[in-house]
């Protein structure tokens, strides 16, 4: 009996790791180092009007989401309908960071598909994207009224993810 005990324990341990790895979900999703930290400061021209700037300080005082998007991003198109619904419901202010994109194309995208954003910052060279640790659009950050990042989601949003990951964190005051 004892002969098989240790190999058995080793195999079970490996299986546990395997199952944990499989259940982990999107293997590309990394824990954001910003959770629980102040949202990175930025000040960028808005997409629609280069003379007006938008920045982190405009978002203070409310829960807000910051959605990183681009016209070249296929998943952004997939989540766009949900963002429009969310904006229409008035549940939360939505700010955009238009990441590494062309201004005319981005403006046309919003004209054609609708514009869920209070404002979109225009991050042409990806400098602010780096400050926010963005590595794959769409990414959505939940920022609390104090300007602390509460949650980050990689990939397209949908109603299920919104309820499970975002709404729950807003009700509990963001502690998680």
């Amino acid at each position: 009996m004892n002969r098989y005990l240790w190999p058995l324990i080793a195999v079970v341990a490996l299986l546990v790791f395997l199952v944990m790895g499989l259940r982990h979900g999107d293997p590309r999703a990394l824990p954001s180092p910003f959770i629980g930290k102040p949202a990175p400061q930025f000040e960028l021209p808005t997409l629609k009007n280069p003379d007006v700037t938008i920045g982190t300080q405009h978002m203070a005082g409310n829960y807000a989401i910051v959605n990183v998007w681009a016209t070249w991003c296929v998943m952004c198109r997939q989540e766009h309908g949900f963002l429009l619904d969310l904006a229409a419901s008035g549940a939360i202010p939505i700010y955009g960071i238009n990441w590494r994109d062309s201004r005319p194309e981005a403006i046309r995208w919003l004209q054609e598909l609708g514009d869920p954003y209070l404002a979109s910052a225009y991050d042409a060279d990806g400098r602010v994207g780096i400050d926010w640790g963005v590595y794959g659009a769409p990414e959505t950050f939940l920022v609390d009224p104090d300007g602390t990042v509460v949650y980050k989601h990689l990939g397209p949003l949908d109603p299920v993810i919104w309820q499970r990951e975002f709404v729950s964190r807003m009700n509990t005051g963001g502690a998680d």
Partner: protein
Amino acid sequence: MKRIFVLLVAAFLMSSAGAIDTDKRFDDPKLQARYEQLISEVRCLQCQNQSIKDSNVSLAADLRREIARMIEEGKSDEDIADFLVVRYGEFALYRPRTTGKTLVLWIAPFLLVLLGVFALARVVKHRISLPIGDDSETKG
């Protein structure tokens, strides 16, 4: 067969056509060497399992540009690693630093080897103690 070969060669040529910006960033060979060393040790987050030196996705290009800028500004390697870790986490570095969180990554291999040596020693010791010709244990 010949057609397949031609196709393969064409595919190979096409793959190298989309090459990465390998232009020299620095005139000083020392700085250039430091730059190349640094970018070979930063993971491309968009295309994981490539370094930003080997990747031509946009984010890798952005990060190469930022690293070149920081070297120009006279930042140390440590500063540059911090810059990346603050934004992307330890995962961005191919050689994670020895901190509390990553300690297990550094120690686990040695622990596993020790464990193996220990197990091997026990098995060998046990076998030696068996009388010669008695293979009842191995046939189990």
